[in-house]
């Protein structure tokens, strides 16, 4: 009774050391059991998936392993493959990429001017960097602002003063705004727009001519029909992306507006554009417009396509952003009102930063779709990288009959661009931490 311990034969005084888990619960085996063979259904699916992968690899590997890079024609490729790997061997003929890659990248852009196009691309990244990454010095934004004119000048060439004077229109508008802003936005805004229009329509022409005569600063001009391949896709894509975002924001705000006319016009525009296939718009741009424009008028085909792609993407962006606006709690709008902010101040400081943050994945999806849609310009006779250039390459006797290699090459480049955009949007989302709001 008194000595309870004595009545027991054994009392453990210390804890047993933990034993290693059984082999079936550790390491790779556990991972396999948990992830791949956790039940009859998953086991079957795993086996099916593995056999499908194996089938693809078995069939694709010899073709990729028998790659030929040095040849001048498809038949030469075939001879090399047969001589090296046997009579029945098949293989990839990457020689077509090796010989024609400039055409896939630059279309018919004059080869001695490739440097200019590359400079435009490098400057594009330099101009985009301060917009995309807030950590960079803000002074670089001046390059971003100047880039539209600079990029245009480098790609198309011609007189420097033409794009410069076009950009000067914005400076004129800014000056008018600054001069009149004391009198209120209602006066300053129309005045700024009017000043820019007057500049573009009446003054820019003579001033350009005058500057050309006084200080000729021109480089070799390149016509739009020389553009093709990725230089065309990137030009259209970048121009349309950068133009469609502001336009889409304006449309989204217009659709949420209380003003009847603004709202009605925005709704009509968005619904009409979203209801029409892009190819239809491109056909209108390239063919139907010619019936209405006075004969001999030279309305650049790339500009027409950029306008059409822009308004097409803007309609989608507007709806994506409207989703972001709708997701904001009503209290945010009321808070802005209670602070006494004007409409534009409220949008700028409270509403849009939150709404855009919510909309990032949707916006980037639209951009990626837009960039891929640039290949549709093949239907209006522009040589896009996917089909236009590929068909042109195939139409030569040397490369007739080649099929997969150009597609794979072009697909890989598109993937690189789009994957980059996707990763950037994920970086932006993480940085803005929209999940921990």
């Amino acid at each position, binding site marked *: 009774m008194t000595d309870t311990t004595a009545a027991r034969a054994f009392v453990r005084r210390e804890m047993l050391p933990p034993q290693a888990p059984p082999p079936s619960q550790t390491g790779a085996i556990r991972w396999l059991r948990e992830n791949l063979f956790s039940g009859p259904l998953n086991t079957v699916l795993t086996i099916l998936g593995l056999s499908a992968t194996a089938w693809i690899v078995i069939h694709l590997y010899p073709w990729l392993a028998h790659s030929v890079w040095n040849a001048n024609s*498809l038949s030469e490729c*075939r001879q090399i493959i047969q001589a090296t790997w046997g009579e029945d061997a098949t293989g990839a003929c990457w020689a077509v990429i090796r*010989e*024609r890659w*400039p*055409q896939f990248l630059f*279309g*018919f852009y004059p*080869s001695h001017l490739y440097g200019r196009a590359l400079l435009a691309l490098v400057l594009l990244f330099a101009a985009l960097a301060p917009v995309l990454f807030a950590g960079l010095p803000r002074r670089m934004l001046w390059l971003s602002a100047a880039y539209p004119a600079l990029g245009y000048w480098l790609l198309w060439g011609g007189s420097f003063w033409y794009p410069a004077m076009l950009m000067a229109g914005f400076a004129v508008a800014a000056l008018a705004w600054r001069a009149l802003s004391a009198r209120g936005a209602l006066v300053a805004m129309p005045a700024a727009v009017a000043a820019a229009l007057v500049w573009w329509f009446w003054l820019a022409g003579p001033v350009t001519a005058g500057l050309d005569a006084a200080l000729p600063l021109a480089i070799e001009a390149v016509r739009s*029909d*020389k553009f093709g391949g990725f230089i065309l896709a990137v030009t259209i894509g970048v121009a349309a992306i950068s133009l469609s975002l502001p336009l889409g924001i304006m449309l989204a705000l217009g659709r949420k507006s209380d003003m009847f006319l603004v709202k009605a016009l925005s709704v009509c525009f968005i619904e009409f554009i979203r209801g029409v296939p892009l190819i239809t718009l491109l*056909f209108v741009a*390239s*063919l*139907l417009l*010619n*019936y*209405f424009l*006075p*004969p*001999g008028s030279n309305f650049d085909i790339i500009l027409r396509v950029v306008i059409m792609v822009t308004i097409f993407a803007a309609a989608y962006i507007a709806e994506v952003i409207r989703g972001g606006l709708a997701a904001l709690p009503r209290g945010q709008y009321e808070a802005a009102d209670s602070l006494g902010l004007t409409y534009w101040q409220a949008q700028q400081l409270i509403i849009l930063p939150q709404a855009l943050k919510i909309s990032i994945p949707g916006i980037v999806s639209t951009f990626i779709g837009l960039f891929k849609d640039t290949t549709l310009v*093949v*239907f*209006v*006779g522009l*040589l896009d990288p996917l*089909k*236009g250039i*590929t*068909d*042109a*390459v*195939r*139409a*030569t*006797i040397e490369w*007739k*009959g080649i*099929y997969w290699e150009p597609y794979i090459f072009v697909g890989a480049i598109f993937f690189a661009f789009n994957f980059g955009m996707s990763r950037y949007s994920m970086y932006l989302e993480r940085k803005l931490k929209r999940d921990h709001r």
Partner: protein
Amino acid sequence: MKTSVFLGTLTAAAALAGSVSAATLDEVKARGELNCGVNTGLVGFAAPDANGNWSGFDVAICKAVAAAVLGDPSKVKYVPTTGQTRFTALASGEIDLLARNTTWTFSRDTDLKFTFVGVNYYDGQGFMVRKDLGVSSAKELDGATVCIQTGTTTELNLADYFKSNNLSYTPVAIETNAEGEQQYLAGACDAYTTDASGLAATRAAFADPENHIILPEIISKEPLGPLVRHGDDQWADITRWVLNALVAAEEYGVTSANIEELAKGTQNPEINRLLGTEGDLGAFIGLDKDWAKRAIIGAGGNYGEIFAATIGESTPIGLARGLNAQWTQGGLLYAPPFR
């Protein structure tokens, strides 16, 4: 009411565009460049090389017209057109001339309001099958699956042919020639049908051409030729006679090698009139005396030389002249007299 106003405006705009663009010759001269619609890429007929220089059988027509009108065969802006856009591009005035292996048909000539200025290649639709299919005639293709390009005359010819012979078939619609080859090689269809010239080029590009045969039947007439818009007869005349000049030059033995010699004057008055040493035929079509000489040089020679250089038997495409021989050789080429 609003619709009718809108349609009225449309019609007026179209009529305006039509009437103003009447003088194509002046427009081309003022522009200093010929806008020529070509295929986006068809082996032997139109293809850009690695440097973007176009060449081919149809392209030679563009060069000849540019040389005759502007004096320089390189002053051509090639506008690649697809099967869907080619007619709109021509009707809307985006191009002055369409040289894109286009079949001359009644409805295209009349309903679409184009003028075919002649035929530069007499083609016909044929079939290609694998040898191990054991078929030696198109009449044995009952129940076959056939790869066929959509939106072309070949689609309609195929239906007509099988119907008139009481045969059944399953069409496999394809968009482009390259896709058709791939489908055919992958076994998606028993037979591939398109113009015989295209079949020959396709077969030549196969890894195993000996295992495929082109059936002897030609089931349609495909006169391919350049065309212009209705309503400008002077421009139609110019393109028509440039084409005729190329054909006639072969008939009279005028080649790129001897043309300079012959242009100094010959015993043959027909050659003299063609090359402008006698008479002034060019003035009738708004050009100078040397127009035909420039056209022949600019195109790279007479019809026979162009044929041999782009699609003839010495090229990998290896087309025989066949129907496209001179009438004196049993073909259909017959240029009206230059007089």
